[in-house]
């Protein structure tokens, strides 16, 4: 069996699994798995760029995904009336002042001679800058948050088409990645891991608490859909041509309209995935990709050949994070709402890692396959666990505490299963399902 046949078969198997859940559960659920699978595949490509190509250990995927989601709110929602005049400009000014403080401190670090005077100047700049920032920021943020807090209380967005938010999400994530990469790259690999773990937590904390930005834990609802590809169910149900088509397919109107909306998303996501996959493949085969792998395999030798390792690392770290940001923006668009409380590191960072490693790190197709497979398992492990628990507890008397506890705990089988899969793959097939060529 040649490699191509084997890989195609693997994809077919995963496709059949998703089809199977369509036949046995519902088509709605199957397409939902497909859509999230497509998004996960993009995240996996991003992580594969960093880990598979360059060997960078990023455990802050969640943060970059969340920034993508934030970009959707900032780009596509309508602006809140009066928010900009009430305090929006003040907030921007405060943020600029804050940035200026940091830049000034960095300049002092770089230009002034080292010594006690330098340290004192830095501390003075930082403290003064912090108080000026707070003095400008606090009243303005409070003014914005006071505007109609039940439905708004934030600045709102630019009211642009939501598709533009996807690249914007990538840019936002890239900016954050540049900042973090600039400080943590070039140190040992564990430090990057811990730094990214931290930045992800901080990004989520900011999104939860800065109500003026995206309403914090009050969530933003009603994010516009990427019309005309994705319509609204109610409109479709009143559209005569759609009714005719649904009739022809023999589907009832409600099912047909929800399926149509979800398939519209699938189409858009598939296009993005194919474009990014093509780009990643091209990058992998180009001299640049070979250089990255050379750096990954032997940093010292690559440096001796004149490659600027830290710069290349920064480059690919920013690129990979941008891809995660795009995926995050797509996910928020699919959900139609931004819920900062829903971002969990186990789900958004570590699960993507499982996808990449199970699929095959260093191979783009492997990451995509791993994403679909692991996402399918993530969704299906819960019903399977429920079924398994029911089977185990069938002999126990009804109403026993243990039986109730076991059935209730079945929901937590997910994490356990994912950990087990990761460890088994790492041990017995460390190169993944579709190994790197």
């Amino acid at each position, binding site marked *: 069996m040649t490699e191509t046949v084997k890989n195609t078969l693997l994809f077919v198997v995963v496709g059949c699994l998703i089809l199977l859940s369509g036949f046995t559960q519902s088509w709605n659920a199957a397409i939902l798995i497909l859509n999230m699978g497509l998004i996960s595949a993009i995240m996996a490509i991003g992580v594969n760029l960093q880990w598979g190509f360059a*060997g960078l*250990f990023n*455990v802050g995927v969640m943060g970059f995904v969340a920034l993508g989601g934030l970009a959707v709110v900032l780009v596509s929602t309508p602006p809140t009336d009066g928010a900009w005049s009430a305090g929006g400009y003040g907030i921007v000014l405060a943020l600029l002042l804050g940035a200026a403080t940091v830049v000034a401190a960095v300049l002092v670090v770089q230009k002034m001679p080292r010594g006690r005077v330098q340290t004192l100047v830095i501390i003075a700049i930082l403290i003064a800058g*912090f108080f000026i920032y707070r003095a400008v920021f606090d009243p303005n943020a409070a003014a914005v948050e006071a505007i109609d807090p039940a439905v708004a209380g934030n600045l709102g967005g630019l009211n642009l088409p939501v598709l533009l938010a996807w690249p914007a999400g990538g840019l936002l994530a890239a900016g954050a990645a540049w900042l973090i990469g600039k*400080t*943590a790259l070039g*140190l*040992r*690999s*564990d*430090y990057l*891991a*811990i*730094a990214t*773990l*931290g*930045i992800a*937590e*901080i990004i989520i*904390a*900011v999104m*939860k*608490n800065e109500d003026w930005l995206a309403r914090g834990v009050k969530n933003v609802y009603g994010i516009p859909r990427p019309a005309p590809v994705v319509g609204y169910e109610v409109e479709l149900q009143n559209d005569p041509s759609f009714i005719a088509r649904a009739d022809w397919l023999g589907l009832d109107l409600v099912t047909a309209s929800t399926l149509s909306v979800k398939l519209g998303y699938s189409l858009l996501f598939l296009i993005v995935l194919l474009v990014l996959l093509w780009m990643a493949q091209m990058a992998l085969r180009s001299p640049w990709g070979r250089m990255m792998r050379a750096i990954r395999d032997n940093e010292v030798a690559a440096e001796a050949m004149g490659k600027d390792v830290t710069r290349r690392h920064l480059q690919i770290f920013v690129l990979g994070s941008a891809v995660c940001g795009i995926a995050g923006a797509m996910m928020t668009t699919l959900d139609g709402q931004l819920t900062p409380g829903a971002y969990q*590191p*186990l789900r958004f960072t*570590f699960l993507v*890692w*499982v996808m990449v*490693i199970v699929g095959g790190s260093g191979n783009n197709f492997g990451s995509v396959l791993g994403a679909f497979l692991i996402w399918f398992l993530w969704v299906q492990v819960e019903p399977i666990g429920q079924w398994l628990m029911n089977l185990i507890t069938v002999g126990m008397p009804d109403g026993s505490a243990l039986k109730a506890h076991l059935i*209730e*705990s079945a929901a*937590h*089988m*997910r*994490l*356990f*299963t*994912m*950990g*087990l899969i*990761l*460890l088994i793959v*790492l*041990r017995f097939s*460390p190169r993944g399902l579709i190994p790197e060529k």
Partner: protein
Amino acid sequence: MDFLNALVALSNFVLVPAIAYGSQLALGALGVTLIYGILRFSNFAHGDTMAFGAMIAVLVTWGLQAAGVSFGPLPTALLALPFAILGCIVLVLVTDRMVYRFYREQKAKPVILVIVSMGVMFIMNGLVRFIIGPDDQRFSDGARFLIRARDFKEWTGLSEGLAIRTSQVITVVVAVAAVAALFWFLNKTRTGKSMRAYSDNEDLALLSGINPERVVMITWILVAALATTAGVLYGLDKSFKPFVYFQLLLPIFASAIVGGLGNPLGAIAGGFIIAFSEVTITYAWKKVLTYLAPENLEPSGLVQFLSTDYKFAVSFVILLIVLLFKPTGLFKGNAV
């Protein structure tokens, strides 16, 4: 009088909580740093090891409470601690045998071990949630306060009260005992010396006949004991919730790195640095400043530098500053 009041308020809201929190972080960071020194990787499963140990303590405490055993004014959890440590030791030794040993023999790169520890983290997290569920669990009992705020006011006649909770005193006492025992072990016993030798120079240690598997086993036992103690103390002081232990990973790593990864003394210093910065920066200073400032100059706002929601940001910023200016940590660690 005002000065005394300010001092009492400061102790009540900043010093006492920060000392207790610092002790917990220090114990956690000691575990991370020991693993780093001997096994040479950052253990992402450490937070969940703490959660697992604490979970056993919670279960044993419930059992003891049901059996009518109590520890007088002290929390029953202290009686449960040895059992919890034993349970945690069994877990980490089984994990080491089934998971980590393979990679040690392969001489895998540290980053692979970090990923492996991520898988272990998933499994431990799943186990804890499976056994005890994801919710808050209360297991502290005994006397709640050593000194009550009202009693303190009556004794001293000050208008500020100082409350010291039993759990805070226990935390500090147990932490001091644990650290003293650890340092005695590392510096005075033959096994401890062989561990330090192994950490300093693996090849040389092997040449002088130190059995690496034994060193690794002892390390895991120590780590399990420290992690369980830290987990139980944190649970007594705050409350037991599996997800919180995962979030403690960041301040614990920050403590270990700030002090210098692989250096036990640094881990303790780092724990207190992180705890004090977190508490002082997220504390609203209005009360203390009102006592200290002259009339009419009292602050109008809360004088809180950052809201408590950003306490992770504090440990993170300190971590970044140390990484930028002194990547090996304040005390010399063996990370390059």
